[in-house]
């Protein structure tokens, strides 16, 4: 007897929903073994994580604070992945969003303070888009591998931000703290509860617009064609180069927006610790949400929960907060293994007598 994978007669939509949900369970199960190996009770750990992330309104607002940049970078990465452009540079594009915003907030004295917020938003997005534009042009025009260029540019962006807040932009009254001066208070993005801020609205609006553009417009139709078969798209007269560059700049702009929201609403300055790996978690969000913008919002919330939960178990149980990241990483394995079942199903073949 043996098991074989057999092509389905049609795409299974049930599986597209089922597989991610099962994946969460499987990842928690494997995570439990890591915890057992660390001599702690997995169940208690998970309960603490859950309470820490979703157990109270104040905990939930903290989860939202982390979810907002994750939602936006997650959306950014999803758009790029739709084109099969492996943008793993969301981290750098996010950092550039923060740098661009900080530049406006700190040095554009020629515009009135209340105007700083919208202008900062635009420049932050433009900075993210521009940074993403480099690998996009390299790929579209000369076919330079984008996984490497986007990733390498993350390090460059982070080090450049470091140069700024350690060097020319450093707050002279900051007592040696690596960071810029705080932004003018009129230019802060308002918060609605605790540290949770209106960046949430930006993320939700962005997701809805994106959903509409991708599924209901000519441009979205073309993006779909290019992503699924660039050769066929070219035969139908779709301009591939221009679309790659535009879509990836959009992807960068979304991550740049995340950087804007983070500095304008949470830290109010560009400072050490701006890059905490949101751009990488965004990859998991994109894949788990199956590149669906609306689903990405919820997956981002779950991922933020894992991060906040990880911080909680560090405080409550002395376990490394990295456990949250481990669980995030674990999610992708069952998800990838399961994705085959949308187009294939398992068949059991019983061998005939002679073959045994």
């Amino acid at each position: 007897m043996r098991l074989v994978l057999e092509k389905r007669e049609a795409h299974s939509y049930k599986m597209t929903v089922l597989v991610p949900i099962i994946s969460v369970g499987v990842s928690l199960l494997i995570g439990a073994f890591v915890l057992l190996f660390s001599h702690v009770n997995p169940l208690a750990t998970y309960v603490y994580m859950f309470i820490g992330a979703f157990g109270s309104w104040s905990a939930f607002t903290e989860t939202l604070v982390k979810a907002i940049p994750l939602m936006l970078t997650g959306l950014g990465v999803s758009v790029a992945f739709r084109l099969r452009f492996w943008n793993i540079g969301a981290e750098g594009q996010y950092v550039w969003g923060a740098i661009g915003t900080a530049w406006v907030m700190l040095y554009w004295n020629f515009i009135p303070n209340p105007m700083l917020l919208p202008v900062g938003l635009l420049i932050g997005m433009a900075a993210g888009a521009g940074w993403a534009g480099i690998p996009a042009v390299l790929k579209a025009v000369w076919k330079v591998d984008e996984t490497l260029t986007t990733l390498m540019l993350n390090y460059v962006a982070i080090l450049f931000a470091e140069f700024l807040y350690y060097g020319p932009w450093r707050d002279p009254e900051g007592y040696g703290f690596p960071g810029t001066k705080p932004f003018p208070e009129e230019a802060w993005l308002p918060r609605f509860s605790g540290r949770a801020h209106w960046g949430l609205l930006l993320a939700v609006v962005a997701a809805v617009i994106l959903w509409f553009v991708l599924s209901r417009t000519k441009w979205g139709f073309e993006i779909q064609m290019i992503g699924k078969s660039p050769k066929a798209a070219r035969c139908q007269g779709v301009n591939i180069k221009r679309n790659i560059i535009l879509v990836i700049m959009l992807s960068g702009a979304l991550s740049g927006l995340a950087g804007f929201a983070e500095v304008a609403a949470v830290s109010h300055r560009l400072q050490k610790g701006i890059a905490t790996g949101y751009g990488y978690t965004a990859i998991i969000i994109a894949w788990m949400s199956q590149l669906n913008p609306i689903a990405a919002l919820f997956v981002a919330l779950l991922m933020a929960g894992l991060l906040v939960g990880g911080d909680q178990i560090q405080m409550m149980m002395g376990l490394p907060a990295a456990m949250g990241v481990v669980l995030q990483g674990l999610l992708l394995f069952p998800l990838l293994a399961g994705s085959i079942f949308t187009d294939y199903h398992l068949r059991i073949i019983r061998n005939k007598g002679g073959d045994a």
Partner: protein
Amino acid sequence: MELITTLLIVTLRAGTSLLYATIGEIYTERSGILNLGVEGMMMLGAVTAFSVVYATGNLILGLIMAMLVSGLMALVHAFLSITMRANQVVSGLSVTLFGTGLASYLGQRLGPESNGFSLSGMSAEKFTAITIPGLSEVPILSAFLNQDIITYLLYLIVPISWYFLYRTKHGLTLRAVGENPKTASAMGSNVSKIRYIYTLVGGMLVGLGGAHLTLAYTPGWAENITGGRGWIVIALVIFSGWNPSRAVFGAILFGGINAVQFRLQAAGTNIPASFLNMAPYLATVVVLAVMTILSRKKRGKFASPSALGSSFSIEDK
């Protein structure tokens, strides 16, 4: 001359981990599997090697465990991309994401209680440079003979890998599987099995590269110790044109950038440290772009294995 020699010593030390991982990834990619999990596997190899040596004092055991753990991660990637036909880019990325997360977790968990269970700042046995008496005074050459045992081993692994790939039966099959799996299969090779084997072998070599970081190059554990080396390796594989002997030049170039960077930092230049640290990453982007543009005109010699990154099944038509 002396400066060149000391720079070269550091270059080779810095290049060792890169070259191990590059050769490992060449084996994997030659079979048609793209494993972007190098960064994660290297990080796990590094933390495993250090924690084992810290706990047991046994360097060899540290190396073996690093290879095993890293190899295990490679098998996860193999299972996802070969058996489950998952997208290889995303599967490799998840190995990196998980590997770096787990390594960070373990680094904060496997240390002594007195250090808050953290491994950072702890010291353990390490590989030290072994000099060859007599030859150690010769300029330039002495740089090659002032290395640790893991680097010395590399002097063998490079030519053996080249010979294996281009002159043996198994190398022939490996190249065929990565270039044209359908043909290899029709000629009787078990494509899946071969891909599993070389993904595993590649992962183990990557693990050795990681171990070299914590046991020889910068002995000890630090968060994010690989610092993107795993990604530079992916670029080095492309620069090498999937040829183990050419990989040496890339590793020396990037080891050299590290060496010069340290030298300048130590000498105290006006260039801000951030910019010096950017050098290897910027260099990767620039070299990759230049290589890609130039090699378009010379297909064949620098071309990637044709089947790289795509899944294969006999029943597919």
